[in-house]
């Protein structure tokens, strides 16, 4: 589905953070991840915080001025395959998390570009993209 308006983009971003948080929670319940619990817990808490940040942006940065059509953002391009991390080994779990992080990074970068007229939200997306880049580096060190 195309994301055509401001609210739709932010709803999707919140959904993305919540899905990633849920995946991380399940991954943390898998003993395979015992030696990287600290990192994954930190990621999980960040996802929860990001979700709140995005909800606030949706609530506070909506005005009549930004009901402008958005083009070129397709949900499916940024959604990771749904898979239960309880069935995976550590390597597979980390690969799946990395896949999710890469897709989130792509989404935030592209969405920031398309939401330029809404500068507050574009800045939030850029900040979240930057965080994602840091997380991807941290993830790479765990492989």
């Amino acid at each position: 589905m195309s994301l055509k308006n401001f609210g739709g983009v932010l709803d999707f971003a919140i959904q993305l953070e919540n899905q990633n948080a849920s995946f991380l929670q399940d991954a943390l319940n898998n003993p395979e991840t015992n030696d990287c619990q600290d990192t994954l817990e930190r990621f999980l808490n960040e996802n929860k915080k990001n979700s709140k940040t995005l909800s606030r942006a949706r609530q506070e940065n909506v005005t009549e001025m930004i009901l402008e059509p958005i083009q070129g953002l397709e949900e499916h391009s940024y959604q990771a395959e749904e898979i239960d991390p309880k069935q995976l080994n550590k390597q597979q779990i980390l690969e799946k998390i990395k896949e999710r992080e890469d897709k989130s990074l792509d989404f935030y970068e592209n969405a920031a570009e398309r939401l330029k007229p809404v500068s507050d939200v574009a800045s939030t997306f850029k900040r979240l993209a930057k965080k994602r880049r840091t997380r991807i580096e941290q993830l790479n060190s765990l492989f």
Partner: protein
Amino acid sequence: MSLPVMKNYINGEWEQSKSTEIGKVWCPATGEQLANVPYSTADELNKAVESAKEAFEEWRRVPPITRARYMFSLKEVFEDNFEEISKTLVREMGKALDESRGEVRRMIENVEHSTGVTTLMMGNTLEDIAKGIDCRSERQPLGVFGCIPPFNFPAMVPWWFLPYALVTGNTYVLKPSEQVPMTQSFIFELLEEIDLPEGVVNMVHGSVDVVNAMLDHPDIQGISSVSSTPTAKYIYKRCGETGKRVQALGGAKNIVTVMPDSKIDKSLPSLITSFYGCTGQRCLSGAVLAPVGDIADELVDKFVEQAKNMKVGDGLDPQTQMGPLVTQAHKERVLGYIEKGISEGADLRLDGRNPDVDNPNGFYVGPTIFDNVTQDMTIAKEEIFGPVVSVLRLNSLEEAIDFANSRGMANAACIYTSSGASAREFKYKVKPSMVGINIGIAAPMAFFPFGGAGESMFGAEKGQGQDVFQFFTDAKVVINRWF
């Protein structure tokens, strides 16, 4: 399944109206009935006013900082329920969810602005106006105020007034629009969470009888209303007869001028928003698109192309860019104007009469564009309040200014240009008092006054801003000398 009849809120209690006259509340997206609304009686209005009058004597003595704290608490309650308010609004009014969120944001901004009462309600003092004589002016609350809002902004419009009335020490009676009463009913449920004293705010559902009872009631000190121009005139006149303060905002027919030096591609998104946001049902919507000179062909072609691709549908669908009209009756009224445009000889470039929508029972009209409209055509003169654009091709900036000033209604006017000189000339000379420069919806935020000129505004003080603090208070002047 029978739907419940909505209740009034009087003296801190939810009460069923005794009226047997009942109206229906519709979901514009599906055409289904959502609720029943009572057309309450004058006696019920009297009871609400009585309770507000009684509450006033104590409420005016509550320190302004304490009254402001109620508003701080209320802001938190509104933030916590932001999505629910927004979605309730979409269900009964039809606008797209993003637009609804924008409206609720504006409502909350007024609550925020009202908390500045401790500064904004202050008076003035001057020593020695004559030798040994000092003078001061104090702003005092007046008593009970009433509000008669329209259907198009069911959350926001009452809150252009209500929080300011309360923080300045007045008490309040609101009659929500009978077409969209659910949003304020939900908001009043939330109001209960901040424990205002009984009687400080009251809500009476109803129609003409309640309006007339409000206008005639000797204990209501002032009325704030937003409506069509004929209704605003009626309210203004009747309030004058009963000696009330009044701020009656009326209709609009806003011109959006596009100069040859404007940047079309950058302007288009906000032009689309101007004409089709809220499905054209707002007093700040563009109504007449007036390209000046040789920009017209390119502008109109591109505008038609963008409008054609808008997704019309249920406001709760995240894909939707433009929702339905508020009622079947209003849809028929708008369709009547489209027929009128055709019969008077305008060129129908985009026909929205049969839009492609998921639910044909909803009250939908798609984006509609008439080109080569002339100034004498009905669609160039009357307020349509729908997604119908009249393109009026003009030859000069002066023509655009003359057109803007030739209407009785003078609410808003916008200009798109790269020239500071043209922009200044336009804003300097046009009569409408909300002006957008490369902005298609010239909506003042809570800390600026909201209201038009001419037949778009009756009364001296506008909503919001500092004006509204004046409206809700009397300047008492005290001159003193001590022997």
